[in-house]
């Protein structure tokens, strides 16, 4: 066989080699199919189907609205409290959905993982994109509510909103990668997600305001302010809630930490760093997935 003939053949490669997340984005058609299937099947065999994606945040919203707002009196202390809660809830729910569904994603796709060669990163990434898809109608509701309560956005709204989504896309994918592979080895990680999700919900300035946190939490407030998820939540509230209050300028000054955008960039940076660590972790344990699942 001449050299030229050999040259025209595909090269010899290790059949299991993938480039991790890069292969996921190279094989967009496969990713698209997986996302479509997942949208159709996340709530398989349930009568209400995809409506569960809305029932969950809506019930949380009404609980906070009534218990925190009416009974605990947050309606009096935080202006336009329902929007404060709802704008936080939309973005935090995006994260918790990604985290939960992402963690279960590989185990749920057991039959494929055991028999077909494909980069296993596909599944957590698809789970994140499906959660992102479900954010869209929630955003529509939020926008309607904001407009009804006198919302007049600025350019910072767009930047802050997009930054918040970007932070949580990266952060959610990172944690989904780590937990999805850990869940293959010990299903305990699936249970752990529920607990962590609770911490995340209460660790964001959603049912309480930044002002309250700064007054009462002392140094512990750094646990919130240093958390990329909480920063994304504040960016989102800055974008939507702040501009629905009577005096946005004062709200921005008193209800948000100074240098919020800088913190947003730091949060994005640390999320990217976490994603790199997650990819390293994933690649380290990936080889054992088909046999352990």
């Amino acid at each position, binding site marked *: *066989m001449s050299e030229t*003939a*050999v040259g025209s*053949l*595909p*090269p*010899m*490669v*290790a*059949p*299991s*080699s993938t480039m991790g997340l890069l292969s996921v984005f190279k*094989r967009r*058609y*496969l990713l698209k*199919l*997986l996302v479509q*299937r997942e949208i159709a*099947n996340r709530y*398989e*065999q349930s009568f209400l189907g995809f409506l569960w994606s809305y029932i969950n945040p809506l019930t949380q919203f009404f609980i906070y609205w009534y218990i925190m707002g009416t009974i605990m009196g947050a309606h009096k202390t935080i202006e336009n409290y329902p929007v404060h809660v709802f704008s936080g809830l939309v973005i935090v729910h995006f994260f918790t959905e990604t985290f939960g569904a992402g963690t279960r994603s590989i185990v749920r*796709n057991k*039959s*494929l*993982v*055991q*028999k*077909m*060669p*494909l980069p296993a990163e596909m599944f957590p990434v698809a789970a994140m994109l499906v959660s992102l898809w479900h954010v869209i109608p929630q955003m529509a509701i939020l926008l309607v509510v904001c407009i009804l309560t006198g919302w007049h956005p600025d350019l910072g709204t767009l930047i802050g909103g997009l930054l918040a989504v970007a932070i949580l896309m990266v952060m959610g994918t990172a944690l989904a990668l780590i937990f999805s592979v850990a869940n293959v080895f010990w299903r305990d990680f699936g249970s752990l997600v529920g607990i962590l999700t609770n911490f995340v919900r209460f660790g964001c300035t959603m049912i309480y305001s930044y002002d309250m946190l700064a007054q009462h939490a002392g140094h512990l407030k750094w646990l919130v302010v240093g958390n990329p998820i909480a920063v994304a939540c504040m960016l989102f509230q800055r974008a939507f809630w702040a501009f629905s209050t009577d005096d946005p300028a004062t709200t921005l000054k008193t209800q948000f930490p100074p240098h919020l955008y800088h913190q947003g960039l730091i949060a994005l940076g640390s999320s990217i760093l976490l994603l790199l660590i997650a990819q390293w972790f994933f690649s380290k344990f990936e*080889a*054992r997935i*088909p*046999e*352990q699942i």
Partner: protein
Amino acid sequence: MVEAIIADHVTKDFVLRRHKTFKKMTVAKMRGQQTVDRFNAVDDVSFTIQQGESVGLMGLNGSGKSTLLKVISGVMKPNKGSILTRGRIAGLIATGAGFQSQLSGLENIYLNAAIYGLSEKETKAVIDEIIDFADIGQFIDQPVGTYSSGMSSRLGFSIAVHVDCDIFLADEILAVGDKPFKRKCMAKMQEIRESGKTMVYVSHAAASVQRMCDRVICLENGRMIYDGEVDEGIRILNYGDDEDGEELDLALDDAELGADV
């Protein structure tokens, strides 16, 4: 000649976790027992398969055939040694394709084809052939979870053979499926073989290996014990005995082809 598959001292071990829970692990650690057990499902196997060769992989149950096939397909990664392959790989591993039970047959065709690396256009070009060949009627629109084992392997086989691949892997595909379908499969595989594709064929049925392959690799407890002539390999494994020797007229009856069930 051009190599299609090069296995170089391939070893694949499995970790058996003896103690599944925290409590049991702690007790075992305190007693100084081992908590992790390893065994080599494929142990130091080396071979080279040339493009266009058709190789039978034989051995008893648990000898490592399916694991080796998973390593070749890229589902599993060897712990030691290396495996290199050239071109697109398609095929069936351990009776049945990777189907998602809640998806319909049709959706699974698209998904599996995409995993093999086909684009939407390429899939659309062969979809009618796939459906025709699988021949499962209106079940194509039903969730695969409702299929019988025969139906799902028919569909799996049909997808695998219609993917334009360079290497075709077939693992005990004839274990399920009825006689007419087996005959159709054999004809299709013969066609694949004649088209110059590389084929790795796992079967216990001596007659079908004799018909299909020009070389066999025999495994025993994960190790390669023979690599060479088909008849000699079958003799080594004593497969010929219970089938009345080298019955080469290939009447394709169930006793021969289904011997692996």
